[in-house]
């Protein structure tokens, strides 16, 4: 039931969102707009990842496989068949989502560590396929996708700013709906204890595969938009573990149990890493920084920033009041759902 304070929060969020959406009009130059689009892309990707990772607890380090698939499907369709870019990205998302059902059927037969291994393998498989199937994909030299139109860089960035923003909002909405739905409850049950959930009659396989496919589909849309935006696809860099790891890092940093957690993680990591790249130049120090950040997050605040900050707020703020002592305790420490 939306209380007064939460209505204020929603209104504030909406206003903030509207302001942020005007950024392309005030961006000082094309490069900074590019950084913003990049951040939005990762916000969308991390949120998509979180549909699987946060809700089911299955950590996929290989989501860049779907990213790359979406990129290549879109790129190839645009290059070979001449279909328009943006709708094709959505179609690619659907196609990859369907493929992910098949992949998930096999991959989700294992759990925990083995599942991680399988997702890593997925990235390499598609990387190798993209490189090896030269006639289809152009091999290691990559694929050049024609630009969306005869626009300046600034205009292209603006178009994709809104495209990624739309995708992000859609991913958010999907996460939100799933979180509240029966599917979401089932997924969380799987996360807590899969065997018990199965014993209780939760259709764990169907639910897991659904979450996997939805998450994969969204990620693929992100990949398709990326192909249309960047116009140059290189299999090694598109099917790269690092993209997948970034998604996980961002989701973790912000908080995997929260709607806006991954987005917050992306907003912190992307500008920071661009800043470091420009300042330090050397890719290797950038890697050290990323590794350190990830290690610190895992060791010190594994639940992410949002819970850490809200824990802070609770400690500083007035204690929760309730006529029943025990529920006051749980009222303050139960998970914050938006």
């Amino acid at each position, binding site marked *: 039931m939306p209380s007064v304070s939460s209505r204020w929060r929603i209104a504030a969020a909406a206003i903030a969102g509207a302001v942020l959406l005007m950024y392309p009009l005030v961006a000082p130059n094309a490069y900074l707009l590019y950084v913003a689009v990049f951040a939005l892309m990762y916000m969308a990707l991390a949120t998509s990842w979180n549909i699987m990772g946060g809700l089911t607890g299955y950590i996929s380090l290989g989501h860049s496989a779907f990213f790359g698939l979406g990129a290549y499907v879109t790129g190839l369709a645009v290059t070979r068949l001449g279909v328009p870019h943006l709708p094709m990205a959505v179609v690619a998302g659907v196609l990859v989502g369907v493929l992910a059902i098949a992949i998930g059927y096999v991959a989700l037969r294992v759990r925990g*560590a083995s599942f*991680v291994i399988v997702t890593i393998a997925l990235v390499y498989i598609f990387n*190798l396929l993209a490189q090896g199937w030269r006639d289809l994909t152009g091999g290691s030299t990559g694929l050049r996708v024609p630009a969306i139109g005869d626009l300046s860089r600034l205009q292209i960035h603006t178009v994709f700013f809104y495209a990624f923003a739309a995708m992000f909002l859609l991913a958010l909405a999907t996460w939100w709906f799933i979180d509240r739905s029966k599917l979401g409850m089932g997924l969380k049950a799987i996360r807590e204890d899969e065997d018990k959930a199965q014993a209780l009659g939760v259709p764990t396989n169907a639910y897991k595969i659904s979450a996997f496919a939805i998450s994969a589909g969204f990620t693929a849309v992100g990949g398709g938009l990326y192909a249309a935006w960047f116009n140059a696809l290189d299999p090694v860099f598109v099917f790269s*573990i690092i993209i997948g790891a970034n998604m996980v890092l961002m989701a973790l940093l912000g908080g995997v149990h929260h709607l806006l957690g991954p987005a917050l993680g992306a907003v912190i990591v992307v500008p920071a890493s661009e800043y470091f790249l420009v300042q330090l130049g050397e890719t290797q120090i950038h890697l050290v920084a990323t590794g350190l950040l990830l290690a610190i997050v*895992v060791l010190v605040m594994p639940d992410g920033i949002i819970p850490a900050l809200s824990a802070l707020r609770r400690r500083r703020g007035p204690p929760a009041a309730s006529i029943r002592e025990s529920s006051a305790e749980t009222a303050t420490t139960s998970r914050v759902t938006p």
Partner: protein
Amino acid sequence: MPSASLLLQGLALGILTGGVYALLASGLTLYFGVMRVVQIAHPAFLFLGAYLTYFLFTFLRVDPLLSILVTVPLFFVLGVAIQRLLLSRLRPDSFTMMSVLLTFAFALLIEGMLGVVATGSFRSVTVDYATRSFQLGTVRLPYDRLIGFAVAVATLMLLFAVLRYSRYGQALRATIQHREAARLVGIDTDRITAIGFGLGLATAAVGGAVLALITTFFPAAHWGWIARLMAIIVVGGLGSVSGAALAALMLGVIEALVLVTLDATWAALVFYAFLFLTLVFRPQGFFGGRLAERF
């Protein structure tokens, strides 16, 4: 149709390479056995070992095989330290996710530091005997690969002996099999886990020295190995050293045969094809026996 001599050569190369794969994958098995942790940074440590071997060779003229005497104790201590100080701090309920991410962070850190210190240039260790080979009929066995194979086999046998016959080894196997039961019989599982981890990293030191000898490497080289080694231990059966060794040999041979008959790219796919086959038909692996786990 490839000639018989080519196939034989491929077979020979495959066996030699498979032995090395077995060594490289053995560490992963140990980590997984004692802690159920997927140590993504193992290949990165392998190449750290390779770089150390390279630097010892280039600046101090230490033969790569001798440098093992230095790097193994170093890595053992490092492994114990990592397990004790970092991995054991992770919370049990989210252990899988966090350990994967933490070890991934290690991999990034190692790659970054190697890049800063050693730059992105490709390195390899070229010793005089490296370009000569031993002729056996029509098959030529390159010396560096023979040596790598011999080192790998020796190390694995040593590891096996330790696991089988020493007290620590038996305690380790007990811990791998059933942690609570091991504790019940009085084994200090925390200490054993640390030792297991140290052993795993020690094999990385040996593996690194072998890699330095037989291949060229650069800081980002470890990415290509993660999935391959993971595939080996899944096919072999998670938690079983002998299973991993057998799987490594088999996959090494198949990869080499595909390489000499088809394409380099398809050869790399061999690992993943087997990974998926294993998952579909026998998720607990093919060679593992009772030690192997489902996940």
